[in-house]
């Protein structure tokens, strides 16, 4: 299983930001196939910027991003779309699409110039519908769906794109606890069963600790990365928020309001 040991995503000394302003620097981490990784940190620390940089939506400032051993910028757009899919915070532009139509768009990198779906494409779409419990909803329009359902559709579309890496920007926002857990558990299943590498940003630190294989904490200094238990032992979560407001309880892996 030499293939399994290879890094899907490898980040070395990455600096992200905009032309004049550095948002975050000294980011290092490696992800292998089948790993679910959460990115946590306070608002404005650069979680979304990191995701946009990794997704190829904005240029990095310096450092290296290797996707399957190749420099990210070297990928042509059609080749990249077969290796990397995204779920963004923005809503689909047209909410008049049906669930099935939207998921079918995930097959675009593989279809011919007219977008004709082959038997293989249809099978992928069926699998993606099934994995996210959407078979019953397939003919529904997106505007008829609840937030939780729509989020499942968007993740399912990324799965249909069949890429080795999936990036998700805050997939749990606007969802209640049940649907947060549901979507994260589904992501975990997708990562472990289909050997997909999944990286997502979130504010649900407690859930991330329980479900993720790796966590990247953006703190503006060291940006620690590792196994959640390891990070707890090294007391990295304790420093995440000002301690006069909230404190991290290492025993339960949760935050408590300071009295």
């Amino acid at each position, binding site marked *: 299983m030499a293939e399994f040991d290879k890094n899907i995503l490898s980040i070395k000394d990455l600096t992200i930001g905009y032309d004049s302003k550095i948002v975050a620097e000294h980011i290092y981490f490696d992800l292998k196939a089948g790993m679910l990784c959460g990115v946590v940190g306070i608002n404005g620390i650069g979680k979304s910027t990191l995701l946009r940089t990794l*997704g*190829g*939506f904005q240029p990095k400032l310096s450092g290296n991003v290797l996707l399957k051993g190749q420099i990210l910028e070297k990928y042509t*757009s*059609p*080749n*990249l*779309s*077969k290796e*990397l*899919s*995204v779920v*963004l915070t*923005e*809503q*689909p*532009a*047209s*909410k*008049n*699409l*049906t669930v099935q*139509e*939207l998921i079918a*768009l*995930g097959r*675009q*990198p593989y*279809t011919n*110039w*007219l*977008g004709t779906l082959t038997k293989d494409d249809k099978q992928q779409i069926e699998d993606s519908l099934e994995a996210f419990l959407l078979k019953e909803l397939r003919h529904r329009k997106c*505007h008829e769906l609840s937030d939780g359902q729509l989020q499942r559709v968007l993740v399912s579309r990324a799965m249909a*794109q069949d890429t080795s890496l999936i990036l998700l920007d805050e997939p749990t926002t606007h969802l209640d606890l049940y649907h947060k857990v549901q979507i994260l558990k589904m992501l975990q299943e997708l990562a472990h069963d289909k050997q997909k590498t999944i990286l997502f940003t979130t504010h649900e630190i407690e859930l991330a600790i329980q479900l993720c294989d790796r966590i990247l904490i953006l703190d503006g200094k060291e940006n620690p990365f590792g196994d959640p238990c390891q990070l707890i032992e090294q007391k990295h979560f304790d420093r995440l928020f000002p301690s006069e407001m909230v404190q991290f309880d290492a025993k339960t892996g949760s935050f408590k309001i300071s009295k």
Partner: protein
Amino acid sequence: MQRAKTFRISFVFLTLALLCSWLLNISSGSVSIPFAEVLSTLFGETPEIASWEYIIWDYRIPKAFTSILVGGGLSLSGLLMQTLFRNPLAGPFVLGISSGASLGAALLLMGTSLLAGYTSFSFLGDISMAIAASIGSFLVLLIVMLVAQRVKDTMALLIIGLMFGSITSAIVSVLAYFSSAENLQRFIFWSFGSVGNISTNQLLLLGSIVALGVLLSIISIKSLNAFLLGENYAQSLGVSLKKSRLTIIIATGLLAGGITAFAGPIAFVGLAVPHLTRQIFDTMEHKVLIPAVMLYGAILMLLCDTLAQLPNSASVLPINAITSLVGAPVVIWLLVRKRKMMF
């Protein structure tokens, strides 16, 4: 798969409707010709009165084909713009594209005589008219596109489109003030919109422009579908944003500009038809929508032209007024039933 079957039935139905409205269109006009005579003339026989043959072959049939090109082309340009701008209210008229074409046409019709002192129009020809209107619509389209990149708000975009309309009409007024009565009249008749009085050569030119626009739309089908998710998602699906955006803009400019050059600014067809089409074809797949809006637009235009002819009377109403009378209430009706006004 059930849906593919319903679409096929709808297509057959629409094609039949197109044929019927085409026949209706050529059998009505200022001179009343019995329907049987129209049919037999179509099949190559000589009608009772010799001039009928001329009326049908040299006037009504080119006019009917112009209606088909104008209706189909404008509707397609509306569909492209709604997808490109992610805005259900986008259309060549609303976003100021037709105003741009008008400005191009006005500059050519009235401005040249202003600059060169006295120039006869025949010297300029049809092609320069098509080019002037197309350039006008391209420029406005590019400016609107640039603004759309900055302003994400759809309402703001529409207001900017309206402002373009005001600016162009202001410039047109200034030009009109200094222009000769003859040129002014020419421009005013052009701005009423008309699908008649088009020569075979002009028809061929218009046909080629529309065909080119349709071709560019067909090669953009995949990126159009990806744009339904938004530009970032489209990019992540391997769509080259710059290239496909430009292709779609050129297609829209050719369709809206070329058609406006020959038929004048025709309102509401481009905006209303895509929405009407989606009432029948409940899909967002452009592979289905492109032929569907073109058929629907052609039918609507043929019917509007039949109305404008005021059967059996010598007067012809401006087609622009008819399409507005039909189109504007449709848009209001769709807005009131808000859910359906999505794209």
